[in-house]
Every structure is written in C-alpha cells, then in structure tokens.
C-alpha cells in the first residue's frame, strides 16, 4: 500500500520549514533508517529518515521550497508494482522521524536519541497479596509491633533499643508488650542520648547483633546523624567489605500536629541521598508490617520512616505467616489513564484523597506509592508516565532537593518524549513548620494543591 511522507516537525514548536535538499529521487528504493531529505528551519538543519521501506513513487515538494507546513505530504512511497495513485492519506506521526530531534508527541520517536521503548513493568493496581487470603483490620501501630515481635521470635540476635521502649511501652506505644515477652535484655531502655545509643547500636551490629534503634522521633536522630552516616552507612565500604552494620533505625518522621518547627520535619530526602543506606517510608499497615520485617532481615542499615498521624490509621493486613514486602517495588493503589500521582508515606493520604475527588470531575489519576526511597522503583513510575503522559509528585518534605525533584529528572531523561506537560512537584512549603494552626495547615501539602496540580498538567 502506498503511503504519504509528511513534512516532519523537528521541534514541538515548529510549524513550517524549508525542504532544503532531497537525498533520494523518484524510483529509488529506501529502507527504514535511510536518510531521505534535509529540512531547514530558522534554528537548524536536520536530516530525516524513512521509517518504512518502499520505492519513492513521487516527490510532491521540490527541494528548495520554503514555508512547507508541518504534516504537508512531501512524497509518496509505494510498494513494488504499485502506482502513486494508490497512496492514501495516513495519520502523520508514524511516517517520518527527524534524525536528531524528538517530535512533539510520544508517537514520534527521536532516532538520534534512541527513543525509549515502554518498559516491561506495567503499572497495575493489584492487591499486594494473593487473592483469597483472609485479611483483618489493623492499625499501623499494631502492624509495626507485630513485625518486631515476629522477627524477635525468629532471631535471637534481634533486639530493640531506644528511649522509653521498655517500661513505658514506647513513647507512641509501638513496642507495647515487647518487654513482657522478650525481657530487658532485648528491649533496652536507654538514657536520652541519641548520639550515644545510636553509636552503641552500630557497634553491636559490627559485633554480630541485629539492633533495631527506635528514635522517639526522627527529629532527634539529627543528634545521631554522624553515627548513622559516617559509621553505619559507610563502614562496609571503608572496610573493603569486611563488616557492615545490619540494623534498622526506625521511628516517626514528619509533621505530627501542632508541635512546631523542631518536631515537624520530613527526612525522606536527607537519608535517600546516602549510598549505603536503604530508606523505607510505608503508608499502609500491611506495608508497615511487611517492610519492617524485610528491613530487620536486611544485611544493610535501613532507615525506616514512620508517621505519627498514620500510627492510628487502620488498613487491611493479610493473615499470612511471615508476610514480607520486598524493597524497591512500588505499589499502584489506583489505576488511571489521565495523570500519574507519585507519593509515599503520609503524602499518600493527599494523593488518594485527591484522586478520589478528581475522579468525580472526570480525571482518572493513577496513584503510585513508592514505599521505598532507596532503592526507588523507577520502572513502575516510568511505565505509568508512558501511559498517562503526565506526572505530579506529592511529599511532605521541603521543595529544594526533594524526592520529587529527583523523579522529575529521571522522567525527563527517560520519558521526555512521553510527557505532555511538565512534571510538577508538590511539597511542603519552604519554611520551618509554624506553630499556629492556620499557618501549619498551609505549610503542609494539601489535597487541594494536589487536585489543582493534576488539573494543571491535564490542561483542565
């Protein structure tokens, strides 16, 4: 079947150009990839190449012609034995590609840049456990406690240390019941001395134990950040692989409510920056349980970022013996075709809330929970963006150097041609957390902002 060759757009903004030179003549056989012509605009000259093989049946626009509109038929390719008259108008995008530059839509691969094919991982919302498994309602708090208890029963070397984890049953009651079951040797109350007990736990990990360090909140872990980064994260590398620090640092992270600047901070991006650490930030109870169990077994230091507001939230948790969730695998909570919303931790509450409301307005959002920030599941994010062509990210941390910034860069690099709008990063405001209720609410990311951003990238 004869096909028309259309004037290509060399850039998203190009409307017309000069057909500078034909490199083929009527009667020539061309193969996919052969250079057919040179196109000039006021900015550049570029070669374009054939996508399909065929015979140049007719040249419709002579070389040297100026102001040729994009998508104007400029030649007709025929198959052997066909006549030019058999040519049918076809959809423009599949015909030709500019040699060096991507065209405006995802359908026009840029030959020179090795246009990425869609990734294998398909963003699909499915229950993270097999169908038919019984579940029960459980709070994030209970899920975390169960995860620790199960792992402490499994492995005698696992122990918990931190402020008020024993007699007090945990400042946020996460370690409820653990002292009774495991005794003071494995549920160790420490003085208020984060730098000290963190370093001690690192030494215990060097010495073969599997410490879980509870920070009453991650705000206090800044006292200990030297030990977390310079000792826990780097020693395996510095020692040439001789000894690492298999341990978990866990506790609530991010804003609670009305506790002001020093107690309301999201450290996700801080720790995700560090090679040698793994960083986990669960949203649901099942993930809190499954990921904490994985963290305790991991031979590397793991930062496990919980959230005070999520502690009391109830989710379905599968009744599976030894339920674990692997690192580096995002969960798609909701499928949608219009826009991808990527979030993690408490950011998911805004993402899910916004998606619900957007659906009411006819925008179907796909919601991805990253679950772990080191490693990050890029595959699922990219697959989704290639489907929806739009992406917004939602997190509680500050805007400079945010996780969303990193994802934007990766999407730009790997799925640039698929984007129909800039990636927008929704974050907390660039201020220390104010105390006053009205200011605090405004300083956090809000559902309304997520909805607004989703509409913006959908041009609605």
């Amino acid at each position, binding site marked *: 079947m004869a096909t028309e060759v259309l004037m290509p757009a060399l850039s998203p903004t190009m409307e017309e150009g000069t057909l500078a030179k034909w490199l083929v003549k009527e009667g020539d056989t061309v193969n996919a990839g052969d250079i057919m012509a040179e196109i000039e605009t006021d900015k550049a000259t570029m070669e374009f190449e054939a996508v399909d093989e065929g015979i140049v049946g007719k040249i419709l626009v002579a070389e040297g012609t100026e102001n040729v509109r994009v998508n104007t038929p400029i030649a007709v390719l025929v198959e052997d034995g066909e006549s030019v008259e058999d040519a049918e108008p076809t959809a423009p995008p599949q015909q030709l590609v500019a040699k060096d530059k991507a065209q405006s839509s995802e359908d026009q691969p840029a030959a020179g840049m090795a246009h*990425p*094919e*869609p*990734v*294998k*991982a398909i963003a699909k919302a499915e229950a993270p456990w097999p169908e038919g498994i019984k579940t029960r309602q459980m709070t994030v708090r209970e899920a975390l406690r169960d995860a620790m208890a199960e792992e402490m029963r499994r492995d005698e*070397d696992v*122990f918990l240390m931190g402020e008020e984890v024993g007699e007090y049953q945990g400042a946020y009651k996460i370690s409820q019941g653990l002292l009774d079951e495991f005794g003071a*040797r494995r549920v160790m109350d*420490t*003085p208020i*001395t984060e*730098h*000290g*007990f*963190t*370093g*001690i*736990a*690192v*030494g*215990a*990990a*060097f*010495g*073969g*134990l599997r*410490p879980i360090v509870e920070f009453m909140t991650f705000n206090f872990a800044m006292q200990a950040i*030297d*030990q977390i980064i*310079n*000792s826990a994260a780097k*020693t*395996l*590398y*510095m*020692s*040439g*692989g*001789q*000894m*690492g620090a*298999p341990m978990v640092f866990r506790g609530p992270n991010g804003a609670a409510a009305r506790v002001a600047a020093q107690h309301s901070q999201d450290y996700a991006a801080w720790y995700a920056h560090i*090679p*040698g650490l*793994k960083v986990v930030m669960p949203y649901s109870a099942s993930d809190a349980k499954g990921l904490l169990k994985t963290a305790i077994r*991991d*031979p*590397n230091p793991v930062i496990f970022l919980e959230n005070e507001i999520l502690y009391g939230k109830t989710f379905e948790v599968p009744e599976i013996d030894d339920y674990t969730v692997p690192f580096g695998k995002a969960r798609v909570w909701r499928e949608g075709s219009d826009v991808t919303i990527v979030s993690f931790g408490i950011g998911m509450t805004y993402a899910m809330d916004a998606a619900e409301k957007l659906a009411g307005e006819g925008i179907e959002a796909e919601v991805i929970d990253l679950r772990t920030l080191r*490693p990050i599941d*890029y*595959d699922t994010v*990219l697959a989704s963006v290639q489907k929806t062509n739009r992406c917004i990210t939602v997190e509680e941390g500050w805007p400079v150097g945010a996780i969303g910034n990193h994802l934007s860069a*990766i999407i730009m*690099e*790997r799925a640039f041609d698929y984007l129909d709008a800039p990636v927008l990063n929704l974050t907390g405001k660039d201020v220390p957390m104010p105390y006053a209720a009205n200011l605090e609410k405004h300083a956090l990311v809000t559902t309304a902002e997520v909805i607004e951003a989703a509409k913006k990238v959908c041009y609605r």
Partner: protein
Amino acid sequence: MKNSTLPKLYEDMRRVRTFEERVGELFVRGQSAGSMLHLSIGEESAAVGVCAAMQDGDTFTTHHRGHGIFLARGADPNRMMAEIAGKDCGYCHGKGGSMHIADMGLGHLGANAIVGGGIPAVVGAGLSARHQKSGAVSVAFFGDGATGQGILYESMNMAALWKLPVMFVCINNQYGMGTRIDQATANPNLHERAEAFGLAARTVDGLDVEDVAEAATELMDGARAGTPAFLAVDCYRFYGHARKDKSPYRAEAEEDEGRKKDPVLRAREKLIEAGLMTEADLDALDATVAKEMDGSIDFAVAGEEPQMASMFRDVYDPSQPEPEPVRVRLDRVLAQG
C-alpha cells in the same frame, strides 16, 4: 627479670616508630598516600602498653592516629602500608586508607576519623560480647581532643550503667590539632571525668611502657569482669598534627622538652640498665625492624591499584545483588522494551 616482657614491649614500640618514620617514604617512591597522615611518634607506649593487656578475641576502635595501635595489636605492616598507599592488597582493598583501616580478624572494628566517632562502637561491641558471652573486652582508643565531644560521655555513662566489658583509652598527646589541652579544657585531670561516671579510672605517665602496661592490665581485668574502665596516657606528640603541619603554634623549646619524653629511648635505657639486652642486641633488633618496614614500602609500591570495577562494590552487603548505578539500571530496563 628473666620473665620480663620489656624486650617484647620495646620491639613492638620500635616497630611502631619505624613504621611511622617510613610512611613518608611512600611519597619519595612516587606513591599517592593521601594528605592526611597522622603519625603517632612519641605515643608508642600507649599503643603497645595497652595492647599488651588485650587478649585474643578482644575488639577495639581507634581514632585517626591509629597506625601504631593496630600494629601493636598484630597488624601486618605490609598490608597496612599498602592500604595507606591505596592498593588493592591493603587491609580494606584501598578503599579505607590511613584513617579507616579495619580488620575483623584482629578485632579492629575500624579507625574512625570523626573525632570521638569510634567511641560508642566499643560500647556496642561490649554489649554484643555480653550477649554472646564471649568474655571479650572492647577498647576505644582516642585522643585528648575527643574529650571535648559529648559522645564520649554518653558512651561512658551507658557503659557504666550497663556494666559492660569496655575500656576507654585516652592517648593524651597534649594537642587537639593545633590547640594545647590547657587551651581546650579547664580541668586537664581527664580521669576525674570518668570517675564521675562510675568508671574505674587512672592517668599514667606514658614515658615508661611498663607503667602503662601495668595500669592497663589492672583496668582491663576489671573491665572483663564488668567494671568499665578509663585510662589516660600522658605523652607528647613529637611532630605536627598531620604530615604537612610543622606545628608553628608551639615553641621549639617546648618541643625539645616534650621530645625528651621518649618511651622508646626510655625502654632501651632500661633494658641496658637491667642487663636484659646489650647495645649491640638492640642495634641488631632495630636493624631487623628497619628491614621489615623497608619491606613494607616495597610491598606497597609493588601492589596493584584497585580495579575500577570495585568502585561500586561493598556499598551494600554482597549477599544481595550488586546495586547498579541508577543510569545503568535504567538503560537495561528500557532496553528490554
């Protein structure tokens, strides 16, 4: 006198001193050895005296000035020198260097170059030892500079609170980089601080290695039995803070006086006085040590640099798949198309 340990103590100190004197030769031999080399010349009695009290299975951490301590614990000077030169045959395959030497085999839980940074790990190791009933003591070596860091007091408090088999050894060479101790602390009787936390604590003059060894043994035996201990060893840092520091902040007269406090010379004199070794014996021993340390330079010079492929190794535990660099991974995933 027949059972004297002094000849061995002397030999160990001589090995430390000669090793430290040779380190600079790496540069002469065209090797790249980093700009941060902290020598422990003048402090040999602290390293050797305390290590003489340690037993197999005991663990320790050091500060950035830790070559001598590790040597005194039995390190192979070849692999140490190779590590300092950044060679694959070094203790850490060239990825740690002078300030991060570690060796699990000899109980070295790592040199830590953040002042005070290595101290809490020994309390953790003490906790492990008790948990595992291994009977081991863990020893933190640090300088007087670290006594300004809160982490020391947090660590001493918990060691005493939990009665852990831990010993804190402060090698007081009088200087935290360029600041003399009397410029940095109002009460230079450092052991009094440890006493306040409930540790068994002493200060000993580092001039005589036998005094150091005796004090260390007494305290370490107590630590093994559950009374954590603190020992300050008074000595003098003969040279600058690091290789290029000519210590312009202290008077020559002070340095001349300080260098009289030489534990290696003192042990040598004692050996001769006691008739344990002759001048000729000692000269022969010194020559043997010099030859060994020259050999370590040759070993380091001959060693291969690490393969570039080792760059991404050991960021995470090797029992899990190697983490690919982000871009390599994306290329692979996208190529599956």
